[in-house]
């Protein structure tokens, strides 16, 4: 069995720098705790060079380095970074264990490159595994995390190898004990009491400890000492526990200061969405629903769900949708942290045709429809559908999902159809009509004008020719029946209209313009 361990040194700091890349190169420290009791958990190289180190309180560190940038430990960023690390590892193997705090184990059994190395001599095998480890690190680096890698036959050997300065490091098969022997005992992280005892005994290296008889160690140091002794001999019985891939992907961060305006939030949110979409892209997935979770100051929570018409990875579209959502329903309190959760789905694919018309790119189409829906409203974008009935204004809207174009473009028609069309006026324009004979059967229309001077379109003029009436009755069994008499009217000032009189209340409307 061959395992790789990927470890991110100073993980809290690395996760923070991934969320705030502008801090890279600065003297930064990540603290845990509040006020003067806050202790440094991790510090950047520039801060460490000045003497700042883990365990110091923030006032102590500031006394050494007044310009130190301090950031609180960010659980949201660390969770997202750990997920990104796991996803990068899953590009190499389906069996990946989440060991937490920037450590991931990868089962390399069955990997094509590793399988190839089995047939070669030991030197070639190590070279092959080193190449694989470098590839792993290159993929992890794309997620914005600096990592080290080690390959060994057990989790312990791989972990210790990953923590060595010369990364990546490969422990040859069967040489775990020899590999561990010269290393300091601190690499095994013994319990404090056991470490003090071994210090008194004068044992410094793992090899020295491994030489001690197992029974004597067990009788003097107990079960914990026996387990440590087995570890020192390169024995690690812990199996790899692969994780179940999550159904959703999350990116977010806890903010240093609560945000009260939209623009700073979107600035930070865009960066998080960039990272989220990059993770989706690495898995050839797209986002079909975006959940926005907001931590409110001082104590509150707000959650939104933004549904997308089709899976997309377009960050610009998602930022626009988040903006519109928050503008429509502001959270009501300062935002102290946020998390974007993407529900992934397979992006739509289109097959290009050699001879037929080109199909639209599904990804771009989905992004465009989402942006149009955000700009105009979801009910104002779609594919029109004919509806059974007689009311001229009837229509329905379906989601736009065009059929794939034909493989061969049809022959262009010699003649195209040209029929008079009707512009439907939605809603109908109320009009006032002057007629000479007001009988139900014979009505001579003389002139008409819109009831309101602000009506759009403006309709006014004397009737030149009128044809009608034609009766329309529909839905008499419903709450909103239609009982109308229609006329086609030509006005002397120009314009050909379709007007009707509501038989129930006698009100006139123009509901169409022939065009």
């Amino acid at each position, binding site marked *: 069995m061959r395992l790789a361990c990927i470890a991110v040194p100073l993980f809290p700091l690395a996760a923070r720098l991934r969320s705030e890349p502008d801090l890279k190169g600065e003297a930064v420290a990540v603290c845990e705790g509040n006020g003067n009791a806050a202790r440094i958990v991790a510090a950047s190289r520039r801060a460490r060079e000045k003497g700042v180190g883990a365990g110091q309180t923030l006032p102590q560190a500031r006394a050494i380095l007044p310009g130190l940038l301090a950031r609180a430990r960010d659980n949201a960023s660390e969770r997202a970074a750990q997920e990104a690390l796991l996803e990068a590892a899953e590009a190499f193997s389906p069996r990946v264990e989440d060991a937490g705090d920037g450590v991931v184990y990868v089962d390399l059994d069955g990997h094509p490159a590793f399988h190839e190395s089995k047939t070669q001599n030991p030197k070639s095998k190590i070279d092959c595994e080193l190449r694989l480890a470098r590839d792993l690190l290159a993929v992890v680096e794309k997620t914005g995390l600096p990592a080290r890698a080690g390959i060994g036959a057990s989790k312990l050997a791989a972990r210790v190898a990953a923590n060595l300065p010369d990364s990546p490091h490969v422990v040859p098969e069967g040489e775990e004990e020899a590999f561990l022997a010269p290393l300091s005992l601190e690499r095994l992280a013994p319990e404090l009491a056991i470490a003090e005892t071994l210090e008194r005994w004068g044992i410094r290296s793992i090899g020295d400890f491994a030489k001690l008889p197992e029974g004597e160690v067990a009788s003097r140091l107990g079960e914990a000492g026996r387990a440590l002794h087995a570890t020192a001999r390169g024995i690690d019985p812990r199996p790899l526990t692969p994780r179940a891939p999550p159904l959703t992907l999350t990116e977010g961060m806890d903010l240093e200061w609560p945000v009260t305006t939209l623009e700073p939030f979107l600035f930070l949110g865009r960066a998080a969405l960039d990272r989220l979409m990059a993770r989706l892209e690495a898995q050839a997935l797209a986002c079909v629903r975006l959940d926005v979770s907001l931590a409110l100051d001082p104590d509150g929570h707000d959650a939104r769900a933004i549904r997308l018409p089709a899976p997309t990875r377009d960050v610009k579209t998602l930022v626009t949708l988040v903006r519109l959502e928050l503008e429509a329903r502001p959270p009501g309190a300062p935002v102290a942290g946020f998390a974007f959760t993407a529900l992934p789905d397979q992006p739509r694919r289109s097959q290009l045709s050699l001879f*037929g018309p080109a199909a639209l790119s599904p990804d771009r*189409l989905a992004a465009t429809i989402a942006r149009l829906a955000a700009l105009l409203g979801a009910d104002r974008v779609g594919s029109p559908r004919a509806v059974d009935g007689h009311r001229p204004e009837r229509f329905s809207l379906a989601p736009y999902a065009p059929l794939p174009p034909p493989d061969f473009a049809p022959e262009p028609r010699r003649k195209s159809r040209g029929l008079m069309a009707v512009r439907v006026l939605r809603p109908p324009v109320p009009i006032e009509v002057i007629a000479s004979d007001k009988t139900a059967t014979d009505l001579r229309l003389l002139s008409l004008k819109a009831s309101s001077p602000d009506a759009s379109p403006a309709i006014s003029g004397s009737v030149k020719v009128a044809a009608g009436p034609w009766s329309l009755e529909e839905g008499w069994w419903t709450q909103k029946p239609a009982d109308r008499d229609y006329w086609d009217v030509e006005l002397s000032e*120009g314009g050909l209209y379709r007007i009707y009189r509501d038989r129930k209340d006698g009100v006139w409307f123009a509901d169409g313009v022939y065009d």
Partner: protein
Amino acid sequence: MSTIPALALERLLEGEGFAKKPGGVLLSGLGARLTRASELPARSGLFERESLAGWLAAMPAGEALVELSARRSCGRFALALSALAAATSSGQAAALVDLGDHLDPQGAQSAGVDLTRLLWVRPRRAKEAVAAAEMLLSAGFPLVVADFGLSPRGARCLPDAAWVRLARAAEARGAKLLLMTPWRLAGVAARTAVSASFSRPLWQGSGRAPRLLSGLCSRLTLEKDGRARSGLSETLSLPMAGSLAGS
């Protein structure tokens, strides 16, 4: 737009029954396909491909921005539906930016539009209509018809740069943008400009007999073709599709 060689054009016109003017010089470009209104017989229900209406209905690729300006009841919306019908019936996707929310899906279907391939966008303001048209062109729609309705509010306030930008967006993607406006809006950005005017409804029946609307006639004029000012015109005849009950 492809240029027809002179000889082929001559044969084409003769084949269509158009008499060659004695001593006349054959025109080039779009104008070559047209004849004077007096020479062009009125069509009914079908556009000939060699007519201006037929050309508008099935615009060739490369026509970035074509503007058809017409007052109400001059056949502007019918030509928009013809263009959509030509595109969607050949399997292409098409988009209609409908500023006035005027589309009648039943009428569009009877005009030959494949509704499943049509994206209907209903903006409320002219500015939104222009933004939507640009988005649709960027998405790769080969044909975008932007109808600015009967009295578009705020259309006059749109800067000229907006139309130039739309024309460039269409040109960059090899798409066709058909602007349907109540008056000329796109200005110099329109590669081709056509106007429709002198609308005349056709009525059946006379005297005291009941009337029946049977169609619409108007005059189509090619205002601009590239950099040339053509001035050629033809009669556009649009018969009634059906009665109200059938719509």
